[in-house]
């Protein structure tokens, strides 16, 4: 400060010079009344004062009259411990050292801003003891809010010799300073600029040695208070190499548990978190960031876990997320990742490969909550650099189930973020090779996406680890979910929220009757999507020709596999997948596959008593989901093959029990009952729900899949179901059955008449329907074995009985 040129005021720091004149009214308090001393222009003035050899600065608030610039209305020195108050937007009020109360009322708030800024600068550089307080009326209008804008801040003692008293004072100070932003910021600045933390750590070591319990608790409380400042730089300072051990040492003492001491230091030193190096990490900056990341997590999850409130927790999470982003960014440019990937193309020993898988799993896990764009970038890099080699090692050569679980988890994370990532990069690769090596595009070879499905299917069918099986099913259903394959071709932002919610995907969704057909329609409307549409078809065709026959082989009667020898839990998984493809895939393809391979017949057998109840009920649910599709081909196939019979055997055995089996089957019957009226075009409004005449009216037109099913069920199992008549929907089932029978009798007569008048629209309609059926059955005929042909002819017989 003293080095500035005293002769030329222009040389004073730009931000700290005389201010522009601002229009203002001056008031002075006399006899308890504010007296107007005139209007003028106010400037903040800096004067150099020579005192012997020393040149010091003084500051003044000066107002010169508007009428006569030479006349000075006010000249007040900014000095001592004067407290300036800025009241609302335009008023500055203070009492000078002579006891005069002075007020400046500015014309504009900008003028007031200028002079307040001047006072702040004076406080910083010339008169430390003055202060500026902002006073505003509070939101509710009662009382006022005071906020320190500038002023002297008391800071903890930096005396080398700390003791109980200095620590006690320091605790009081950091606590009080946390109330006002200004004081808090000054304190933060102090912590960062001084080596106060080191001072505390030094004293901690002395206190611990000397068993000064009081000091230890004070130190711990001071550190915690500073953590509550919620200031990133302070938190990062605490976890750097220099401070971390001291800080967690201090935090081992906790006033909440005065008789206990945690052993964080010992834990960090001995048991880990041990930093395992697969290959040397040469980038020391990165190493530091990674260490900081883990230390912060240790603080958050262990040392401070009971202490952090939501606000603190969020700032910890923010810092952690930031470090994660930084680490993941760095990984992609550092040769480190290439070296890791290379391990898998060498003969390095398998323990190194295992650690490399663990490492990749850790970093992919770390990436989970990053920004989607960052994730896409990282996963793409991983795939480009050879992630498939890693997976193929894990799935083909690695014997340890735990590592295959990690590898599956890793792949799930990536495909749940974006399946297309894997597809697109595969496409890129095929293109590249086609150009470079003049390779024929290998359209008949199994593509990487099918390879992955094939590997996963193999694991599911052969691995006995229940956890792995579940993960694989999750991966398969993600890979096979049509939504994932429909995202924009660049795959930046596909949304997988829907998939994560179907972990247990026998969720009974009653509104999925349109399945994939609806999705295709919406694509057709958009020409840009036709390419994606085409690719999707190719992808699923490949799945049904290459993978599905293998994956679902245990469910095919032709396979002659004795189901009783198979693991019931594997069958549960396969059944869930069948439910999934039946409800989520293009109806035409999945139905063809399911019916042609007689899978529903196996399903029906699985309801039988030789299997565990969990499996039997999963099979019932599978039927429930398929029936709920309201698809006439499924319905007729199921009815004509008597596939629901075992369900009612199961019901019979549990009829007087109250258990999950009865609930599960009751739910199925409820669905049948509801749909008997629902499907007839009549909405399920309150009227229809409670008024049977309304229902019978709608039934008049309705001879739908469910009324037929209802008739079948009541006809065959009415005596069993009657026992459940306490449920209203069961009583309705009987009523529907009665009405259906009546309608049929009427229709018998009607159709006879219809035959004579060919123009009748109803007949045309029913003819068209019959035609449809025939067409689809002939589809079945061409591919199904003779056994199913019998089914088909039987259908038509049924159909004949009903319609004519």
């Amino acid at each position, binding site marked *: 400060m003293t080095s500035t040129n005293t002769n030329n005021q222009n040389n004073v720091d730009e931000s700290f010079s005389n201010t522009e004149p601002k229009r203002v009214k001056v008031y002075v308090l006399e006899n308890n009344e504010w007296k107007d001393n005139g209007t003028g222009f106010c400037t903040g003035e800096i004067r150099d004062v020579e005192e012997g050899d020393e040149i010091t600065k003084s500051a003044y608030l000066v107002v010169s009259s508007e009428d006569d610039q030479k006349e000075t209305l006010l000249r007040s020195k900014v000095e001592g411990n004067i407290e300036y108050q800025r009241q609302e937007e335009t008023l500055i009020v203070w009492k000078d050292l002579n006891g005069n109360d002075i007020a400046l009322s500015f014309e504009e708030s900008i003028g007031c801003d200028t002079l307040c800024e001047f006072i702040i600068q004076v406080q910083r550089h010339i008169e430390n003891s003055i202060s500026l307080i902002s006073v505003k009326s509070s939101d509710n209008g009662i009382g006022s809010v005071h906020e320190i804008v500038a002023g002297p801040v008391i800071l903890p003692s930096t005396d080398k010799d700390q003791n109980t008293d200095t620590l006690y004072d320091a605790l009081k100070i950091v606590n009080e300073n946390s109330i006002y932003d200004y004081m808090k910021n000054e304190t933060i600045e102090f912590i960062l600029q001084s080596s106060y933390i080191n001072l505390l750590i030094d004293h901690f070591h002395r206190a611990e040695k000397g068993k000064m319990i009081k000091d230890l608790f004070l130190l711990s409380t001071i550190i915690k208070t500073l953590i509550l400042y919620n200031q990133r730089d302070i938190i990062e300072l605490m976890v750097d190499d220099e401070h971390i051990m001291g800080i967690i040492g201090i935090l081992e003492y906790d006033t909440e548990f005065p008789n*206990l001491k945690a052993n964080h230091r010992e834990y960090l030193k001995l048991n880990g978190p041990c930093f395992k190096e697969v290959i040397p990490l040469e980038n020391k900056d990165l190493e530091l960031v990674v260490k900081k990341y883990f230390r912060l997590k240790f603080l958050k*999850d262990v040392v401070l876990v009971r202490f952090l409130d939501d606000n603190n927790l969020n700032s910890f999470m923010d810092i952690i997320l930031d470090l994660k982003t930084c680490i993941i960014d760095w990984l992609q440019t550092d040769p480190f990742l290439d070296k890791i990937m290379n391990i898998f193309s060498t003969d390095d020993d398998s323990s190194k490969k295992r650690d490399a898988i663990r490492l990749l799993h850790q970093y992919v896990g770390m990436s989970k909550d990053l920004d989607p764009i960052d994730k896409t970038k990282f996963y793409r890099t991983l795939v480009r650099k050879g992630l498939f080699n890693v997976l193929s090692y894990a799935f083909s050569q690695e014997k340890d189930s735990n590592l295959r679980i990690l590898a599956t988890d890793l792949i799930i994370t990536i495909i749940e973020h974006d399946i297309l990532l894997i597809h697109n990069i595969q496409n890129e690769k095929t293109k590249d090779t086609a150009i470079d090596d003049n390779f024929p595009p290998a359209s008949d070879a199994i593509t990487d996406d099918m390879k992955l499905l094939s590997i996963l299917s193999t694991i599911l069918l052969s691995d006995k680890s229940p956890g792995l099986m579940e993960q694989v099913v999750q991966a398969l259903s993600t890979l096979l979910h049509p939504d994932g394959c429909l995202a924009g071709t660049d795959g930046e932002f596909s949304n997988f929220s829907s998939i994560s919610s179907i972990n247990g995907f026998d969720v009974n969704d009653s509104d999925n009757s349109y399945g994939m057909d609806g999705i295709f329609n919406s694509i057709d409307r958009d020409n840009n999507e036709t390419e994606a549409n085409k690719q999707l078809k190719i992808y699923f065709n490949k799945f049904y020709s290459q993978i599905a026959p293998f994956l679902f082989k245990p469910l095919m009667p032709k396979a002659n596999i004795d189901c009783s020898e198979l693991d019931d839990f594997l069958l549960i998984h396969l059944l869930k997948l069948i439910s999934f493809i039946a409800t989520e895939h293009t109806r035409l393809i999945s139905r063809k596959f399911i019916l042609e391979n007689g899978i529903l017949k196996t399903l029906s057998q699985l309801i039988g008593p030789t299997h565990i109840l969990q499996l039997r009920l999963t099979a019932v649910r599978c039927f429930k989901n398929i029936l709920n599709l309201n698809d006439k081909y499924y319905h007729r196939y199921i009815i004509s093959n008597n596939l629901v019979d075992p369900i009612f055997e199961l019901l019979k055995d549990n009829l007087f*029990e109250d258990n999950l089996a009865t609930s599960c089957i009751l739910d199925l019957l409820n669905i049948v009952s509801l749909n008997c009226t629902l499907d007839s075009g009549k909405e399920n409004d309150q009227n229809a729900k409670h008024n049977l005449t309304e229902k019978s009216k709608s039934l008049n037109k309705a001879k739908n899949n469910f009324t037929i099913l209802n008739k079948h069920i009541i006809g065959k199992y009415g005596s069993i179901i009657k026992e459940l008549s306490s449920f209203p929907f069961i009583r309705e089932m009987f009523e529907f059955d009665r009405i259906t029978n009546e309608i049929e009798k009427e229709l018998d007569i009607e159709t006879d008449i219809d035959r004579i008048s060919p123009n009748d629209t109803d007949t045309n309609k029913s003819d068209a329907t019959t035609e449809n059926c025939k067409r689809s059955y002939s589809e079945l005929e061409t591919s199904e074995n003779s056994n199913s042909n019998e089914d088909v002819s039987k259908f038509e017989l049924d159909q004949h009985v009903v319609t004519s």
Partner: protein
Amino acid sequence: MELEKTIRLLKEGKHLSEERVYDICLKSQELLITEGNVTHVDTPVTICGDIHGQLHDLLTLFEKSGGVEKTRYVFLGDFVDRGFYSLESFLLLLCYKIRYPDRITLIRGNHETRQITKVYGFYDEVMRKYGNSNVWRYCCEVFDYLSLGAIINNRIFCVHGGLSPDVSTINEIKAIDRKQEVPHEGAMCDLLWSDPDDVDKWSLSPRGAGFLFGSNEVEEFLHTNGFELIARAHQLVMEGYKEMFDGGLVTVWSAPNYCYRCGNVAAVLKIDDQLERNYTIFDAVQPQDGVGNAIIPTKQPQMDYFL
């Protein structure tokens, strides 16, 4: 016996092998699948509210209320999340269930789902303790089998959250296929999510799932089903329990000093043969390890880190 050993290990907060956890979960499935959506329980019985992974407080609960060897219990759900020992707490209850099948009834809470546990701690806890999610998956599978409610002596309805506009009689609950992730709406969701409040009709819940219901709904439900009390949990009560609507509904909360910082006491409600209500209040006590040394409950740090 193997089970006794497992119970001892769990009480001490010790690590169980994945295989052992799988066995427990499988046995539990087999037991729970035979239960109805609403199970019937006889008096005398002790009703317990949210536990939320506070293993040591769960041990205190058993100690203060007679213990599973002598007493029948209904737990109203929310066994997991928030606390640091979700896995041990839930498995301990399952082990007791296997050991004393008629002494323990477990009802599903809104935290017993895949989605919620991924956010509120149980999933992370398993990842920290095992390095993979298998054990979490096994437990989630059991969640799907938990019943949705219980009825004591045909007079007291026990449920985690509360009532649903879709449920006027108990029969309607029976026709739900409960083996699924808790849906975002409908009867099953409401039973686990709803709260009683000072409202005169069904109202939107600030939780975003379930409903708020008032004395009218409670009166009607009690009357229709011939009940005298709805016992539920789901909301923190500083005093441990709170009766509402002329004693027609009670909230029971059994996690003292919730989240290790809320400063509340906990309660369990004992119903005797005359259906008299007796509340036992208990506080958080200094947790101890297996050999009686005091410990500070904390999360287990992650295992190895790779550079």
